[in-house]
């Protein structure tokens, strides 16, 4: 096995749209796509396994073991549009693997009549902002104009690392329309280097994406996640402020400084 798509259910779409959100900075892509899958009740139709995923398994809360994998979910929305969502627990760890998996999924979707690809990713910034802006890049000027009409700004230049970006480059190579939406985030990380999820950024990206798709999605659960995350970040900021105050008032130095 290099990489394989294990098809769970065959589909026969007419005009297929593929939406990709794999785990990356602040989990914005994954969080957005998992949310749409849940809200639109998309059904699982495929699993992707690859030797390029990180080499370990996860034992879940319920005791079941799971290989690292990507998943394909499918829904035909109320307007008759066929949508396949690509998400999962990991991205391939090497460029070779990222190319292989992304190309495999794109080729599979093209065979099914793919017309357009969207991906959702993060734009990590130090800039202060009230609400995260959403930037867009696309494979053609008319698509960028469409993105602007849905409230996105055009990303003038930059790099989109990982499969959420690669899928755009490969879509262009294969002559498929593609739009990547990048939501601003500070990209906070835990002390062990893991990204903290940013539901506020995901919500901003979803706001643009759902306009593109012409669908309405209940955002109540996402709003709850935003509130929980705001609370957690406020607590962390308060702890940081207290430590800083104690240090400056008493002339103490943190214990790890020797």
């Amino acid at each position, binding site marked *: *096995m290099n990489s394989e798509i*294990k098809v769970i259910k065959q589909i026969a779409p007419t005009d297929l749209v593929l939406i990709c959100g794999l785990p990356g900075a602040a989990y914005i892509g994954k969080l957005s796509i998992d949310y749409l899958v849940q809200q639109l009740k998309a059904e699982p139709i495929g699993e992707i*396994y*690859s*030797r390029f*995923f990180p*080499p*370990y*398994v*996860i*034992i*879940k*809360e*319920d*005791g*079941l*073991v*799971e*290989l690292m994998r990507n998943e394909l979910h499918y829904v035909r929305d109320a307007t008759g549009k066929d949508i396949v969502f690509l998400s999962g627990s990991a991205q391939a*760890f*090497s460029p070779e693997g990222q190319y292989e998996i992304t190309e495999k999924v794109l080729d599979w979707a093209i065979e099914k009549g793919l017309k357009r690809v969207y991906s959702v990713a993060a734009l990590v910034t130090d800039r202060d902002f009230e609400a995260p802006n959403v930037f867009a890049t696309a494979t053609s000027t008319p698509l960028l104009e469409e993105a602007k009409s849905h409230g996105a700004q055009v990303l003038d230049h930059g790099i989109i690392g990982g499969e959420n970006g690669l899928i755009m480059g490969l879509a262009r190579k294969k002559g498929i329309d593609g739009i990547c939406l990048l939501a601003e985030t500070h990209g906070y990380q835990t002390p062990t280097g893991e990204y903290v999820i940013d539901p506020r950024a995901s919500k901003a990206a979803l706001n643009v994406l759902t306009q593109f798709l012409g669908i309405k999605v209940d955002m109540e659960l996402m709003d709850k996640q935003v509130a929980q995350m705001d609370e957690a970040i406020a607590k962390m900021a308060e702890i940081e402020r207290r430590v800083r105050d104690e240090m400056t008032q008493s002339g103490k130095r943190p214990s790890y400084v020797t």
Partner: protein
Amino acid sequence: MQNEDVWIKRYQIPTLKNPVAIVGSPGLRSIGKLVVDNLVDQTKATLVADLYSTHLPSIYETQPSYAAHPSMPGEAGAVVESGKVDLPKVQFYASAEFSVIFVRGYHPNFEGQYLVAQNVVDFLAEMGVQRMVVVAGFGTKDKKIVCAANNPKSIEDMKTRFDVGLGYKGPFMGFSGLVFGMAKLRGIEAVCLFAGTEPVEENLEFPDAEASGRAVELLNRMLSLKK
């Protein structure tokens, strides 16, 4: 699937009826490997195959060996045992009497993790294996055994028949983890027994005979491996 990176030498393979595979490797405190070694002796199982791979290093650059890293492939070389030299290998033993296949694992480097695990699972499927028990350790002060599985029924069975519940969640690295994970892709029902062991920080592979003894005792009850 087999390619030039992995090759299997097959010896005398007995006919086995619905064989169960027991898998262990030198993971946390070598519990899995000790269990396999002990049960191979106990059941007088014979060597039926060796699996070799260009991804099995003789010297690891990572500590412990199962913490594979993409930029630390290790060094190829030979292994000498009882005066005989051979390449690093995964070994398969079988007991026709108990219809069991034992897999003594060996940790591949980062590049070969999936490839080796897949070849192991494919070989077991070729031998007719439909059930697998993986044995490993998990860090705790409690001297207990907990389980995980690739299907809900096996978890339920372990609870009702052997009073073994859940207790570990999180990542499972190395040879045994991936073999456990890939079993489902070949239609093999798999359970993993995690024997609690107190990690020795200086050497995470320092053998824990007591914990492996607990696992052997449980496996004897589960699979009736004693006459």
